[in-house]
């Protein structure tokens, strides 16, 4: 770990507002995206992201630096999100409709109906995937997260994560074809 990061972590652990705000600004989007993609619903993301950061601040003094700070924060976020998912397993069942509503709407641009349909199909197909394939697959599409981080988050070897992502994509393609037989791709 770099000296600058260590100093920054110590400042956060002491509760220095500016350092904490910097940490939230740097990792907030990533943490929220992990929660959003784990749960498939936007409603609770902000509350859970707050919980993640409060846990991070509380346990920062115990952070030993064996993993990267970002990896550690991702792991905390993933655990909080999965705990929530376990508490309401039914959220996964209702995910297709709710995730379809997550497609960003832009009032200034005319909606591409075909694109919306494709997104809704993708969300429906994703919601139907087994959790062990769905989670690595959706985490892998978050910009800031690499395979090593996903492996750390899920407590799996990197090779297994790659296999799950590969199989997840295969199953996703099959589900997409099953949901919309007329489409030729993806």
């Amino acid at each position, binding site marked *: 770990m770099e000296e600058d990061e260590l100093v920054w972590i110590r400042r*956060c*652990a*002491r*509760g*220095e*507002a*500016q350092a*904490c*705000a*910097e940490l*939230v*600004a740097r990792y*907030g*989007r990533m943490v*929220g*995206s992990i*929660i*959003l*993609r784990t749960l498939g619903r*936007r409603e609770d*993301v*902000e509350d859970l*992201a*707050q919980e993640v*950061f*409060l846990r991070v*601040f*509380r346990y920062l003094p115990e952070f030993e630096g064996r993993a990267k700070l970002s990896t550690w924060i991702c792991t905390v976020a993933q655990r909080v999100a999965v705990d929530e998912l376990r508490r309401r397993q039914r959220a996964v069942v209702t995910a297709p409709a709710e995730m379809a509503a*997550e*497609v*960003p709407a832009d009032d200034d641009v005319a909606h591409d109906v075909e694109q919306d349909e*494709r*997104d809704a199909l*993708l969300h429906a197909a994703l919601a139907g995937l*087994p*959790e*062990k394939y769905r*989670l690595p*697959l*959706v985490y*892998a*599409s*978050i*910009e800031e997260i690499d395979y090593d981080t996903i492996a750390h988050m*899920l407590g799996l070897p990197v090779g297994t994560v790659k296999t799950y992502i590969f199989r997840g*994509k295969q199953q*996703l*393609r099959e589900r*997409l074809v099953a949901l919309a037989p007329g489409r030729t*791709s*993806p």
Partner: protein
Amino acid sequence: MNSEQEHAGTELDAQLAQLPQWQPPADFAARLAAAAARQAAEPVTATPPSTSALVWEGFVEYLPLALGVGVLALVLALLPWTQWAAAPVFPWAVAGAGLAGGLALTLRLLRVP
């Protein structure tokens, strides 16, 4: 892999990359920083439990377990093991139970995400 499959794979990757990301509200970092400062300022007030409280807690927690183990041991001791062990089906029953246990454990481990 043919070119059609490659194209489908690329398109799927592109779609996955467009899954919604979360954008924190404008005041999110400031609110959390304030909460973190409050959290750091909170004194640790919890007092460690006394030894007698710990002993009593352990006693209450483990008493039913200890009683259950005692009763089970008594029941097992009263069973006609010698007679059963002499039966020709006994080794098969033991092997079957072991196999079923092993299979159940393996399936359980495979289901862990």
